[in-house]
């Protein structure tokens, strides 16, 4: 794919602007902070993945024989807390988003570079603190911290874990504010709102959710802490409080949080598919409207986590209705990506394989979401493996696949080097196959009635559980491989040139790796996004 004339390495770029540890830890360069985030989230990802592996090992056999029930419960709590709060939420926005947003806008940096660095410190310190609390304090509440179990019954360091998650929330808020202000105030000349790449739109929408939803989670966690520390009983039914209120507040944040994970993935996939189909995106305006519609409707569907919780059945019907509505913009997006392929010039590079995998996995995840929104079916499959499979298809099949796709797509820009294409394709395929092997059986388990968060289970379910565990092994290979060949590329990969994919977008108009202030002169934009034909 690389361009015909080999391009020389840029003499000065952000990576050789300083070699000391200090030049990294005190940097305000958004590109370096993107790397700091990448290191942190990768570490958290493998920690959470290790917990998942232990869970799958335990579930190979029906009796709880490998580990104690307490340990198992702590493992799925670690897995959930780490993956949701410390990996998925910051994954794309804080790594690729951090790196690319100013580049795509033609800006020299984010609006508040020091705030950006601060947000990484808050995130990393808060994350490590939480993990210490969860591991040393034996937190066993799951990532959802449902009351009254978390507030009155769990005999573990819930206080500390909740405090940690609360602190990390500020890093989300800081990132959100930074992205919104940057998008509003710092676009290059000629870069109007409707010329923005969809990746920017997606991160902008994500930032809105960061800013609007995180504080509500914050106050909810504060109230849990007050309940444990001071005996204030706002969620405690024994004191007149209401545990359902906790669920409402929690999901008011945590449902939009799912869109925090998936919207940036939409952005990544839009960039990849247009580039490797060499085609403008089908229905750009529709895509933007869909992103904003999802953001908006994402705030009114939280009650679909509570169809069997005891909330009013009429509320259930209303939330089911909104959930059906929110499925439509997602369907529009899926359709438009597919239609973009029409009359394209398609090459199946590794990022494209990730992108198309995303398309398939996200579709299955989305459609099973519709199945879950169907009230009577949800009564049966709520809190079973069907739900587990559904949200893994969205969060892992969707968000993580897109993250890896994006990492490969922009890797030449991040490092200035190419990676081994063949190994990358193998990894992408291993991921697709391993993922489906792991999680498809879980749909079947769910409808068969297997409840989630079970340390031991009836023998009826063993075959499907075993299939799922074996799939997890393949999946692990799909995740470990990139660590090796990307690590190799970082040291020895051939130089990529400024635009190895011949892609559009401002980030490709500067050298790879880019100079410290991104552009030698401020670029000017005079064409719409994805001007491929």
């Amino acid at each position, binding site marked *: 794919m690389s361009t015909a004339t080999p391009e020389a390495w840029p003499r000065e770029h952000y990576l050789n602007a300083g070699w000391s540890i200090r030049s990294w830890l005190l940097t305000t360069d958004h590109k370096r902070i993107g790397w700091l985030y990448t290191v942190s989230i990768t570490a958290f990802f493998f920690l959470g993945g290790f917990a998942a592996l232990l869970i799958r090992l335990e579930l190979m056999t029906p009796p709880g024989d490998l580990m104690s029930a307490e340990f198992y419960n702590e493992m799925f709590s670690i897995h959930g807390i780490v993956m949701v709060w410390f990996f998925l939420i910051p994954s794309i926005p804080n790594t690729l988003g951090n790196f690319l947003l100013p580049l795509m806008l033609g800006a*020299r940096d984010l609006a*508040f*570079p020091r705030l950006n660095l601060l947000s990484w410190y808050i995130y990393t310190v808060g994350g490590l603190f939480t993990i210490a609390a969860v591991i040393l304090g034996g937190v066993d509440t799951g990532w959802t911290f449902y009351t009254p179990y978390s507030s009155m019954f769990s005999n573990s360091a819930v206080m500390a874990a909740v405090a940690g998650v609360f602190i990390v929330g500020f890093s989300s*808020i800081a990132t959100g504010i930074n992205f919104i202000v940057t998008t509003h105030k710092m676009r290059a000349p000629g870069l109007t709102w409707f010329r923005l790449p969809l990746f920017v739109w997606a991160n902008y929408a994500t930032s809105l959710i960061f800013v609007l939803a995180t*504080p509500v989670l914050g106050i909810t966690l504060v109230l849990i802490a007050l309940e444990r520390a001071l005996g204030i009983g*706002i969620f405690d039914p024994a*004191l007149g409080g209401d545990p359902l209120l906790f669920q409402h507040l929690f999901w008011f944040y945590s449902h939009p949080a799912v869109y925090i994970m998936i919207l940036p993935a939409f952005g990544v996939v839009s960039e990849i598919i247009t580039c490797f189909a060499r085609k403008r995106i089908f229905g750009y305006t529709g895509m933007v409207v869909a992103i904003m519609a999802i953001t908006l409707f994402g705030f009114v569907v939280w009650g679909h986590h509570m169809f069997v919780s005891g909330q009013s059945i009429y509320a259930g019907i209303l939330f089911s209705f909104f959930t059906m509505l929110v499925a439509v913009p997602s369907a529009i997006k899926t359709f438009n990506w597919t239609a973009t392929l029409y009359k394209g010039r398609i090459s199946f590079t590794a990022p494209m394989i990730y992108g198309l995998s995303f398309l398939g996995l996200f579709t299955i995840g989305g459609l099973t979401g519709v199945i879950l929104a169907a009230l009577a079916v949800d009564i049966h499959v709520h809190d079973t493996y069907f739900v587990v499979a559904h949200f893994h298809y969205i969060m892992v099949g969707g968000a993580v696949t897109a993250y890896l796709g994006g990492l490969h797509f922009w890797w030449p820009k991040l490092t200035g080097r190419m990676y081994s294409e063949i190994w990358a394709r193998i990894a992408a395929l291993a991921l697709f196959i391993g993922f489906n092997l792991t999680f498809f059986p879980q749909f079947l388990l769910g409808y068969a009635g297997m409840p989630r968060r079970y340390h031991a289970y009836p023998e009826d379910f063993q075959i499907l559980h075993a299939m799922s565990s074996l799939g997890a092994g393949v999946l692990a290979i799909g995740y470990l491989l990139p660590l090796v060949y990307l690590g190799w590329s970082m040291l020895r990969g051939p130089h990529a040139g400024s635009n190895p994919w011949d892609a559009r977008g401002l980030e490709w108009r500067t050298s790879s790796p880019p100079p410290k202030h991104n552009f030698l002169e401020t670029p000017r934009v005079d064409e719409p996004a994805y001007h491929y034909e």
Partner: protein
Amino acid sequence: MSDAEPAEQFDDLDQQKHANLMGMWLFLATELLLFGGLFASFGVFRIMHPETFGEAASHLSVSLGVANTVILFTSGLTTKLADEAVEAGRRGLGLALLLGTIALGLAFLVIKGFEWHHEYEIGLMPVLGLPFEYPGADPRNARLFFNFYYAMTGLHAAHMLIGLGLLSIIALLLYRWRDPPKIARQVRISGLYWAFVDVIWVFVFTFLYLLRSG
């Protein structure tokens, strides 16, 4: 950064100023939502137990609440005046007004502390397992009211403390008077935060003190 040059990521000072203000407004929006979650929860219970909450509210001291409201409004005024004084380059006046604001903020906290102490003495502090001797009809739900009372006023007081810390730093910068235009921006931004704390208090005061029965 000095008067002439914006930070390196900005094209000009104007862009920088607008970006900074927008950032602060967004931050305040998140703060509003933080309290919003609490207010919404309070609203739910207020509607569920209108009598009990109304009656429980009548055990709070409106006169102290009013006093605190007046104090906070006055402090809002002094920050605004301090902002204008600094803008006009009048360092001494600005410093005096800012210190006045800090003094008023401290007065607020002293009165609040006095109020809490009084409630503790008459057994209306149902936290940390302290006895709750509520004289009214429905102590169980009144307890919930007082839980909200301490959560809301406590969270507000925490924001007051942050605001006072911020203003103290600004006062120090003002005393040193190194880069007047930059100080003017900082006074503007922190004044915005202080105004926000005032506004939140108005909501807290209305919900807790004024929605009473009888």
